[in-house]
């Protein structure tokens, strides 16, 4: 079901807020946006022929396949002074666009967004560019929006970045 303009704006503001927290490295505040039961997945993509394209995204095997607890462990690691992959921190910019919202009849909302993630490190003039479509499910808990589910569909089979020490 489509949503009203005002609800659309509200949800849009929520996902922009999320991107801002990530780009500001406010990982604990970002973690608070996730429901206790949340899942955060990035299935591995495998290049198949068009005929076998239905097998392209691995159902059971990801780059990420996280519970909130696992996300929390990753965030805790990033808060230490020895998480060398993020010391110094990556400079990221999450460009989020093409928001599509589908209201479900159980109070949850399915979101689709396009993500262009710019990543730059150290004194390198170059950058990594990661493109993906994200499928989210959100709902409200005590009047606050929370993510229940995110699946990240990368537009790459072989990832062109040193590691995934960042969130998408």
């Amino acid at each position, binding site marked *: 079901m489509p949503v009203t303009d005002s609800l659309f704006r509200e949800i849009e503001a929520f996902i922009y807020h999320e991107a801002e927290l990530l780009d500001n490295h406010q990982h604990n505040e970002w973690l608070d946006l996730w429901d206790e039961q949340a899942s955060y997945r990035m299935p591995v993509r495998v*290049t198949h022929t068009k005929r*076998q394209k239905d097998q392209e995204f*691995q159902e059971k*095997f990801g780059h990420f396949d996280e519970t909130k*607890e*696992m996300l929390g462990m990753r965030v805790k690691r990033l808060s230490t002074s020895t*998480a060398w992959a993020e010391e110094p921190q990556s400079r990221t910019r999450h460009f989020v666009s093409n928001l599509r919202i589908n209201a479900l009849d159980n109070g949850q909302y399915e979101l689709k967004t396009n993500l262009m993630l710019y990543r730059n490190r150290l004194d390198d003039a170059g950058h990594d560019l990661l493109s993906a479509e994200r499928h989210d499910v959100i709902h409200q808990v005590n009047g606050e929006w929370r993510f229940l589910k995110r699946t990240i569909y990368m537009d790459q089979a072989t990832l062109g970045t*040193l590691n995934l*020490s960042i969130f998408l």
Partner: protein
Amino acid sequence: MPNPNLIPPIAKAINKGELPLGVFNSPELFELEKEHLFAKSWNFLAHESEIPNAGDYVQRYIADDSFIVTRDKQDAIHVVLNACRHRGRKVCSVEKGNARNFSCPYHGWVYDLDGALIDIPYEDEGYGKDAIDHADWGLMAAPKMGIWRGMIFANLDPNAEPLDDYLGDAKWYMDFYTNKSEAGLEVYGVPQRWVVDADWKLAADNFVGDGYHTFITHASTIQAGMLPAQSGDFLLDGVQVALEHFGIGFARQDPLFNSLAYPPPMMEAMRQRFNPEQVSLMDNGVSLPTHANLFPNLSFLNAPGAYTAMAPPAPYMTFRIWRPLAAGKTEIWSWCMVEKDAPEEFKQASYKAYLISFGTSGTLEQDDAENWSQISLPAKGTMASKLSLNYSMGNGLLEPMDDWPGPGNAYPLDFTEFAQRAFWKKWITTLEGK
């Protein structure tokens, strides 16, 4: 033309326990490696479980060469060069799939799953009837291939010794990774692939014998709880074994590491399968082996990972290939391996432990690759490339253990560099063609 005089000074250095930093970002050495090392070594390509059915295939690489690994209708496995015999176009453009045959999109030459040439369109009109002997124009098979415990290898040197002979004494140790259960291993999912600005040799050098780095490189992962060790130096008084072509490390002191947290029924199954000498290691306070590397670029890791407070740490296992793309540039292929006959909940737990530890998002992997790129990038500097690195750890300090039941020289510390020096000696003799 690469300069063969590059090697003797490096050989001289490693014999003194030193190594010039420039080896980690040298286009000249990279050309030598492609020609004289990767083209003459046993290269791991795939595991049988990745192509379980007739017609299944995966595309794999040895340095720049692309191969198709197939299973034919008679259940035989083939490794063929992914290049049409007419104009050289790749006949397989995808990573994985199932096919009856491979048809070249350029002019339509068709090849069977074993590489045999089946059809040339307009053959009679264009070439003359029976002018081409199809038997001469199939996809080129890799000169040598071999399978051990489901692991498919190929060698581009037609004179290479058989795989089994090459593995030799390393099999005694590879047993620990591959022979834990009756059904053996399977690939969980597919390999993760990503590209790092780091030289392949740094990764091999780390896995072959770097017990030393964990306490500092992986401090954050221990602090945040994913690496269940009481302290970061859990490999300190472990054991390091150096063979000519293989190095491996056992953790010892840390109770969290001992037995790597396998459930009791799986431990019991291992005891049944391992030989008495192998079992004796498990009974003498040594963990199952953790890190290893088979020369040149196949690494192993078996370790526990914690991903939830609700369950004990789970052991995970990864095979990985450090595929050289250029000097200082590597594509990592990381497989999550699990016992095929393990309970589904064990597989799930092992997968989660793998994911939070290794692979693209793995927290240990992240910090390793950061180190390797911060070595490889500066290694091309004029001054830096000549910098002498200290590779002497353990020299004059340790003697091989005389009561070690396995092959090779075992040393009573994994904070030592015998296996790394052995790797470099093997690298040198291979490049020298010895």
